[in-house]
């Protein structure tokens, strides 16, 4: 039996956008993404807004029907038909703890809903016990069970969302910017909890975020996305110490480092301009319009993600 838990092959997600009368243009939110996640591993997925990282996460769970490509979970192809049972093994934690919890349900019902759906208990008492155990996992008190989501702070709501994802005892959780909406001091609490739960339950994470410091801290490997494609994927430390793709290099140099001496002495690569609209993608390499090394070859064809040694993958002709 292999260690690979999630195997994504050439995943594509195109949304039709109306661009005129009787005319639609595909918006290529995700355009040919492949990666694997091992059991109990954390893969970080970073990129700027609009690069398709959230869409990857949602498509993995078939919250959007993929346009093309395959997703294998534990060797089994995920399809529209079996997604119902598959969601017992893969779950999601959403970014916004304010809108992802039903304001009219008590905490007990929110956490209990996945148990109801998958019929994971035989009687009321067992359901209650399971819910209390889950609440204990994420550091909530039993007296919180009868309260409503609006009575909690952002950090506590995110804990409720995590308890809900854990309810079905999944092997894999997609974490879509789970700490972005939280204050710094609360962020650290939630990040530590993710790490503890992984050590205890052996779940694998796809950790989507735009904060590179947080992603580097929590992930074993990191994939960098730009305009619907993975441009670089490597071991977290390797990627940070030795970024190969020019986009990763500029992204890393732009991260504000909370250390005055380092922040002021390092060389910053500041990119010109904005991310192009995914409706009018540049030909060839998507990054070539902002890249200082761009050549004619970059405009003609799109570089593929190739291994540059030790599993360090990069999609660039020059580097």
């Amino acid at each position, binding site marked *: 039996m292999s260690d690979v838990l999630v195997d994504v092959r050439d995943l594509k997600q195109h949304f039709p956008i109306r661009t005129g009368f009787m005319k639609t243009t595909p918006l290529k939110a995700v355009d040919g993404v492949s990666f694997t996640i091992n059991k109990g591993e954390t893969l970080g997925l970073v990129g700027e807004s609009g690069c398709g990282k959230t869409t990857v996460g949602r498509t993995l769970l078939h919250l959007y029907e993929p346009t093309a490509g395959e997703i294998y979970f534990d060797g089994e192809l995920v399809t529209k038909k079996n997604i119902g049972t598959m969601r017992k093994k893969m779950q999601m934690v959403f970014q916004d703890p304010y809108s992802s919890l039903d304001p009219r349900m008590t905490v007990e019902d929110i956490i209990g809903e996945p148990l109801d759906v998958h019929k994971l208990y035989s009687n009321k008492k067992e359901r209650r016990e399971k819910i209390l155990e889950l609440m204990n996992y994420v550091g909530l008190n039993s007296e919180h069970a009868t309260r409503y989501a609006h009575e909690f702070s952002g950090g506590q709501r995110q804990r409720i969302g995590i308890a809900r994802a854990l309810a079905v005892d999944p092997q894999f959780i997609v974490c879509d910017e789970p700490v972005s909406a939280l204050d710094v001091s609360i962020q*650290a609490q939630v990040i530590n909890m993710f790490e503890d739960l992984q050590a205890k339950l052996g779940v694998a994470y796809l950790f989507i975020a735009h904060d590179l*410091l947080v992603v580097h*801290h929590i992930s074993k490997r990191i994939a960098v996305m730009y305009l619907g494609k993975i441009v670089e994927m490597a071991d977290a430390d390797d990627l940070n110490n030795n970024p190969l793709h020019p986009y990763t290099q500029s992204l890393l140099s732009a991260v504000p480092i909370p250390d*005055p001496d380092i922040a002021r002495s390092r060389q910053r690569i500041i990119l010109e301009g904005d991310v192009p609209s995914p409706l009018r993608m540049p030909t060839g390499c998507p990054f070539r319009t902002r890249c200082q090394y761009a050549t004619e070859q970059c405009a003609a064809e799109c570089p593929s993600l190739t291994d540059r040694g030790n599993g360090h993958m990069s999609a660039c002709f020059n580097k």
Partner: protein
Amino acid sequence: MNKPLISVQNLHTSFFTDSGEVCAVNGVSFELDHGEILGIVGESGSGKSVTAYSIMQILAATGKVVDGNIYYKGEDITKWSEKQMRGFRGKCCSIIFQDPMTSLNPVFTIGNQLTEAITLHTDKKGKAAKDRAAELLELVGINEPYKRLKQYPYELSGGMRQRVMIAMALACEPDILIADEPTTALDVTIQAQILELIQKLQKELGMAVILVTHDLGVIASMCDNIVVMYGGKICERGTAHEIFYNPCHEYTKGLLRSIPNVTRMKERLVPILGTPINMLNLPKGCSFCARCDAAMKICLTEQPEELTINENHKASCWMNVKAMLEAEGGNNNE
């Protein structure tokens, strides 16, 4: 010795809500010199934005500066009339907000909104004002300025809009620029562009900048001096070097421990326990003591005084008093 450009003394700002008086700012004092970049850092609800808004007197209708003085070049602007304040805003001090999406008016063109500020505060009119607007857009790095003047905010990206906001703030060459979380809504690569722009303009125009943010990374790379706020009070202040390498308040120490360290990336984070305080009922003692690991008896009952650590560094924490007493006399326990 010159007078400081802005001197805030014992500022108290409250919001009068249905559930009672919320003391958002509780006795804040600081000074800002010509050409200085001051960072105000804190979590949401710490009163950092309200402090900035109090200087501009643009608080929400329920908010009021209840005590304290704000001196601008020696004059107390809290006593100024609304008419005088109108002259102050924009011309002497201007502000850029967090969300460029909502702070530009969607039904007017960029040109319209830019020339409004120019015609109000300078004697430039018509064509001259328009040329000045184009010049400003060029200054903040927007190409084809005359074309942009005719566009509406929705036609621009987030980074571009923030540039327009900066251009608008600079329209009358103010002495002070207040940047309230200027890059929080932007992506990292765009954030780097905007921060570099603010730094460049600050050097060229010699303005003083107050940078309000929760991002310690932004503060570290930008600011000369830093003020750390918690629960509406300043808990620590000093040069960037002192705050980051020699933090003397338990809250600042906690904040620095709770972000991933660049040199020790895989080390476990040490979070600050609990949640930020409820501003409706502030504790009698130190506002951070409920979350503080080192809290002592005195922290519960008495508010710590600001203690001078060295000439570039002050902190309000009983731990420093304890350390000082121990160093002095040795054995007297608390």
